[in-house]
């Protein structure tokens, strides 16, 4: 039974801080007095109007994010009362977090797993898979040995291809609801992303 504590929060309308009237959950503005409302506890998907799925169109995520920021960003409340500005800041903060999480395949995957109670970062078991560990070490070595910009670029393009493949794999893992596989693939993508970041930094130094 996982409904404990969840049911009342989602079904009950919140009380508007300004007119004290009812505001349906996740509604950013009070239907009665139009005051901006606190962001509440909606998950990142529903905040931007999506179902919980790995397959999101980044263009669409962006469009929703821009639409909402246009209404909720503190710049729209610059001449309003301190309370309204504070609420709009909290809204914009939540939108930014949702946007950053959903735009990046790795963060999106980790977040989906977290919603299902599976931690992928900092659970102390991240290096349990010997094959993955071996692959990561080989990639590190290849990068360490790259001396010229061309050599670094070749490591990067290899890692990018692998990252794209891992992203496609994640899509399949989530589609078949194989969360154990998704967790493995997410860990692999974590390594690949880290490698690409490090390679980018190294590219600046060898250039």
């Amino acid at each position, binding site marked *: 039974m*996982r*409904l404990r504590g*969840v*049911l009342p929060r*989602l*079904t*009950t*309308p919140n*009380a*508007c*801080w*300004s*007119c*004290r*009237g*009812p505001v*349906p959950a996740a509604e950013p503005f009070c239907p*009665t*007095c*139009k*005051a901006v409302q*606190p*962001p509440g*506890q*909606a*998950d*990142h*998907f*529903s*905040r931007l109007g999506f179902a*919980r799925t790995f397959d999101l169109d980044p263009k669409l995520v962006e469009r929703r994010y*821009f639409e909402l*920021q*246009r209404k909720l*960003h*503190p*710049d*729209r409340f*610059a*001449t*309003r*009362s*301190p*309370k309204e*500005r*504070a609420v709009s*800041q*909290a809204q*914009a*903060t*939540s939108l*930014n*977090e949702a946007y*950053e999480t959903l735009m990046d395949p790795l963060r999106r995957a980790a*977040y989906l797993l*977290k*919603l299902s*109670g599976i931690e992928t970062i900092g659970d102390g078991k991240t290096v349990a898979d010997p094959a993955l560990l071996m692959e990561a070490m080989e990639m590190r070595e290849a990068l360490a040995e790259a001396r010229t910009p061309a050599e670094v670029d070749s490591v990067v393009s290899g890692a990018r291809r692998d990252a794209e493949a891992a992203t496609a794999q994640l899509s399949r893992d989530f589609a078949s609801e194989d969360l154990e596989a998704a967790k493995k693939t997410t860990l692999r993508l974590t390594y690949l992303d880290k490698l690409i970041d490090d390679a*980018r930094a190294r590219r*600046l130094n060898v250039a």
Partner: protein
Amino acid sequence: MTLLQLHEPGETPLPHEGDQALAVGIDLGTTNSVVAISAHSKPEVLRDADGNGLVPSVVAYTDAGPVVGSAAQARIVDAPETVIFSVKRLMGRGAADVKALAGTLPYKLDAAQGGMVRLLIGEKRLTPVEVSAEILRAVKAQAEQHLGREVTKAVVTVPAYFDDAARLATKDAAKLAGLEVLRLVNEPTAAALAYGLDQAAEGIYAVYDLGGGTFDISILRLEKGVFQVLATGGDASLGGDDFDHAIAEHWLADRKSELGSEPITSGEAKQTLKSARAAKEALTSRDAGDFPVMLRGKTTLHRLTRAELDRLIQPWVDKTIAICRQVVSDARLDLSEIQGVVLVGGSTRVPQVRRAVETFFGKTPLSDIDPDEVVALGAALQAEALTSGSETLLLDVLPLSLGIETMGGLVEKIVDRNTPIPVAKAQEFTTYQDGQAAMLVHVVQGERETVAECRSLARFVLAGIPPMTAGAARIRVTFQVDADGLLTVSASEKTTGIEQRVEVKPSYGLSEEEMARMLEESLEHGREDMERRLLIENRVEGQRVLLALRSALAADASMLDAGEADRIEKARQGLARAIEGDDRDRIKAAVEALEDVARPFAERRMDRAIRAGLAGHSIDEFKGDPGGCLAPDPEEEKS
């Protein structure tokens, strides 16, 4: 940096007080400052009677009081010891950050003082905040003269790469000058706004902004009125001033033999720098020239060619290009994806700089809008957008990572650079000794791994941690960065829920007492002014309550009980009358009275909505956990 404060009383914008829509944009520059205003998306620089739009950011402290601009500049020859220029470079900085020329500092500093640098001018001991406030007062006066009315609101620009201390110092300076800052906007972002709206540009653009003392490079995406910063970088102490120093050092080396071991005076340093600046400017359009240097009462002419100048400034130009490369990489872009590069800042007039930018980006840089004025124009556009509404949207990022000191002088990053703002991130920490009752938190900003290489923002002590075994306490430290890029830190102990007491020691800021004293001194009627603002704040709040009630009654008046309508109407009239008066305690009491009498009505509205909500849904719709969200609920934060 602010700690545990949502807003300071007496500082709120005043939305409904008469016609308050007038707000200007101010570029508070290292070398020059510019003020502009925008109406109907057409920004315009406000010039003085002679048509000059640039106010030199120079302040002279004369017997008759401070003088700003070209009048102050003129005094460099006769009374150099009274003149302060390039003060922007000292905002939120310490004495160690002041740049020497041939071993001589251009100012006398108060050596005893730690924290933010203090300049000694005669009997005066001045903070950079006070000096900047003089510049802002002059700029404000110029705008008022031009517009024929008082100006009290502004968007002020800051280098994108300014850290928290420098941003806060800028905001404090504006406050001292009697200006309410509607928003701090990053200079390259403001420039992009001016360009984007003027040229209807779309796509990915780089803004290369080399001013007198600061360098910024920002990469933005412009799309249908959205100005989204993808990445930013820079150097808050790299600018045209460095070119001047390089030229001056070069000349001083020529005359080393005369100088012997005796250091030059600060007046000689200022004059040599002034001559160096003139040489740099002259060589933008000429190939060579002879420039005077006065030392020990003797003036000699020094020849400088374009080629020599190029060689002297090369290291700084190279440094800017290295930063560009880093930022393009941070934005995860290839150079080919960047559609255009915009030049901003007076130092981009130097031909060598233009060449370097063109070579790196592989594109002819854009400078259709005057690089000295474009930032102020963008600020004016944003000022208009904030006061009159707009369809454009500026989405900026945090320029420098924020973190706290951990064991061994290492930095643990809490918010990464280039994260979109506003942002909130929380991290949990624990005690490492049994019964540990307090914990020191040292907040730093920067990209390096050790505290020593980052900028210290503040230290504070979390006291009153209940006695527990080591590692049992769970102290949650939350960093909140607002749309101005300013940080607020709060902390609480999770296992007991005790909100922690916080003592702040800002590393390079002004203490609250100092700021209060300066405000009182700076405003002729400091105290009355504060009182007036508090009164207006209470009126605004009262009006909000009246409006909210009117909406609620319009929606659900049928739910009122017998007699309730009369009671509410009576309380409503009481508040309306209180708002007319000048007694803010009375307004407060009237707000409370009205809220009390309207509460049962609000509760009935809620009850009905809850019953309707439960009736209309099945339980299956609500499975699953709500997501994690770090954004603080301001409702909770306030209580």
